[in-house]
């Protein structure tokens, strides 16, 4: 178990280094004139050059990257070139917002998709056919379009929700729930169908196995056969899909946060990328990468718990 964990952590760290390196290179390859963005379009070339030198933009790329890495390993992600705020403060003030959206969305998708997938696999018939159609429709509609529809109908016309904004749970739990309802629904609509399809497929395969017939012949209640045995064996592929879904939801949150004006990591990454605020961009990259690695590690552990054979790989 410990060796398994150590291997996963080591590979995770290697991934983190690779992601950071590639991201750092990509930022500068984008060719954004960062100093001019800071000073404005009317600034003189001399002023722009002076600010660029101040930020170290005239130094070799490798030198700048090493400086950043040496700070990052000490937990110092620097300060925003634009706002002067510590990157750590900027990121942590928004991290919880995005995580609350994505984690809640993932959990909801897991629960709802499991119920729907199991129903479709066990009942078949019209339940299964409805799932097929809904999957197709859900996958076809972009989540930002769903978001706009939800805002227009439920928030603006019916006034059941506020159209924009975010309420911290410590300020008001009910306010928090109301403020994230529409964004979460927009995020999960297409995702539920995809995961439910996966659960359905795995369950159908599982229900055909010989051991199921054996379990039934031993007189086990049908619900125990389905939920304690077949579902457990079918969960592995669905968990993998959920891990991918989590990463996808992190990306989807970028658009959703803009539509609902939610102060999360997504909106921060958009604004800072446009500006070329390298310290903040790298801070977001590192934090998101760590989150994704943690989630994948958790999924791996769950996979190992569900399927002992997976621990040997």
């Amino acid at each position, binding site marked *: 178990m410990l060796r398994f964990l150590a291997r996963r952590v080591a590979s995770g760290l290697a991934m983190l280094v690779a992601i950071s390196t590639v991201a750092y290179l990509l930022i500068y390859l984008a060719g954004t004139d960062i100093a001019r963005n800071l000073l404005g379009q009317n600034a003189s070339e001399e002023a722009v050059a002076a600010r660029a030198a101040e930020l170290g933009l005239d130094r070799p790329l490798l030198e700048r990257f090493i400086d950043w890495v040496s700070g990052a390993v000490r937990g110092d992600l620097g300060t925003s070139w634009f706002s002067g705020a510590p990157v750590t403060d900027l990121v942590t*003030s928004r991290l919880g917002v995005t995580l609350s959206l994505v984690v809640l969305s993932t959990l909801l998708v897991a629960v709802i998709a499991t119920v729907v997938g199991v129903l479709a696999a066990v009942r078949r018939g019209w339940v299964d056919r409805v799932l097929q159609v809904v999957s197709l429709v859900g996958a076809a509609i972009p989540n930002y379009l769903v978001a706009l529809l939800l805002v227009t109908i439920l928030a603006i016309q019916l006034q059941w929700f506020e159209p924009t904004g975010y309420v911290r749970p410590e300020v008001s739990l009910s306010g928090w729930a109301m403020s994230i309802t529409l964004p979460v629904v927009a995020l999960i609509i297409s995702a539920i169908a995809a995961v439910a399809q996966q659960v359905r497929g795995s369950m159908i395969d599982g229900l055909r196995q010989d051991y199921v017939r054996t379990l039934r012949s031993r007189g086990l209640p049908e619900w125990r056969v389905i939920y304690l045995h077949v579902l457990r064996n079918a969960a592995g592929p669905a968990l993998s899909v959920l891990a991918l879904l989590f990463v996808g939801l992190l990306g989807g949150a970028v658009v959703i946060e803009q539509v609902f004006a939610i102060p999360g990591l997504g909106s921060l990454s958009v604004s800072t990328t446009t500006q070329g605020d390298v310290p903040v961009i790298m801070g977001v990259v590192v934090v998101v990468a760590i989150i994704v690695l943690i989630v994948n590690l958790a999924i791996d552990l769950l996979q190992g718990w569900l399927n002992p054979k997976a621990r040997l790989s």
Partner: protein
Amino acid sequence: MRRRLVAAASAALVLGLAACTGGGGSDPTPTADDTQAPGSAESLTIGEISFPASFDVNGYSIAHYVQYFNAVFDTLVRQDGDGEIVPGLATEWAYDEARTTLTLTLRDDVTFTDGTPFNADAVVANVENFQASSTPDLSNAQYISDVTAVDDTHVQFTLSAPDPMLLTWFTGSLGFEASPASLTSPDVATNPVGSGPYVLDADATVIGSTYVFTKNPDYWDDSYVVYDTLTINYYETLTALLNAIQGGQVDVATFQDVTSLDQVEAAGYTLNTSQLDWSGLIFYDRDGTVDEALGDVRVRQAINYAFDRETILDVIQLGHGTATSQTFGEATGGYLPELDSYYDYDPDKARDLLAEAGYGDGLELVMPTMSALNQDLLTAIQQQLADIGITVTLTDTGANFITDLLGGKFTSSWLQLASAKDWQYAQLALVPNATFNMFGNESDDLAPLFTAMQSGTDEEAAAAAQDVNRYLVEEAWFAPFFRIDNFYVSKPGYSVTMAADNVTPYLYLIQPAS
């Protein structure tokens, strides 16, 4: 046992992530304020499409950023809705005869929120800090050669040359007064210390999203209403801002999407308008140094006659604006109503002028473009010029549109420029070393007029500006299409006076309707 450990480890990882949830984020959702009585001074929620990079002198602090700064900083003087200079931290001001020495008389009853008294030394410290910074507005102080504290309540500015814009600059970035002690503070960018009507609530503020201010209990000025709380919400997209307006979540907001104005009005908001900018073509190479054709006034005039300005305005701005042939705005002293229609739409006359100039077979112009520009407008430019035989080739400059223009890579382009103050506009686009006069065009006719605009009395300056305006129109230095309506929307219960020279009203111009 091992399985339980594994399950516990994975659960702990997930719960660890979940434990991070919910933290941070903004204060409660921007309120719809439906429970606040109209005209009340409890709170003001503003919707904005920009947020300040920082609160120190190095960032933008005017245009869409000015309200953030108005909240925490007072200015030396203010502007009323007509653009007239009125007292702020300075109660009186006087120039010497040569207009190169300006003396301000300051209030003696103002204290910064850190307890530091506001006085002439504070003004000196702020001006010197401004001059030593890399602020985008550094040119505002270009004529200040010295600033001296005469005594606690008098500060004297010595200028290298008269600057008709100086008092106007004191209503904006050059005039924001921060506590001198804060200027060298390590958190000057995020923790502003001024004497303004509000104090930034750093705990409730989420940088880049929501800025929350509370009323300064010791504010010195009771001539206008200061709300108990001020919230400025940044909306990354116009869709989100429109949704917030339709949901009544903001009390006032900047709003520039003409296609959605009906929805804003349907939500019960009032449209407050002003005109600051003009949109059209600029001919940088009027001497024909690079582009010989543009050196001929007949070619430039022909281009002016080629445009159906009213139709362009209807299509691009849905009629929100004023078609014009001049670039001086209505608020300027140089504005002449009759010049709005100097060039009518006459493609035949345009072709005749081109033929007269020797370009009867047509000519080509290369102009820059970028994705952020209105492509419909650029297409209209191409089509209407093609109609008189001029082929416009658009070159994508990527993110370097302004850089390439300022570098003189193009001899003409579409542009949108502010034109609300005579001398400011002259320095922006007209004088030989103006920002957007990259080819350094000058004229013996214009030189004495610019001198009068800079050094003359207000009446002399206005008269000179009018002469400049006539010259520019007759010599077709530009081919403007229209002045753009600038919108600021407000709920009932809020009275908004538009600023004469800023896209958003200064904060003190937003008051309860009562």
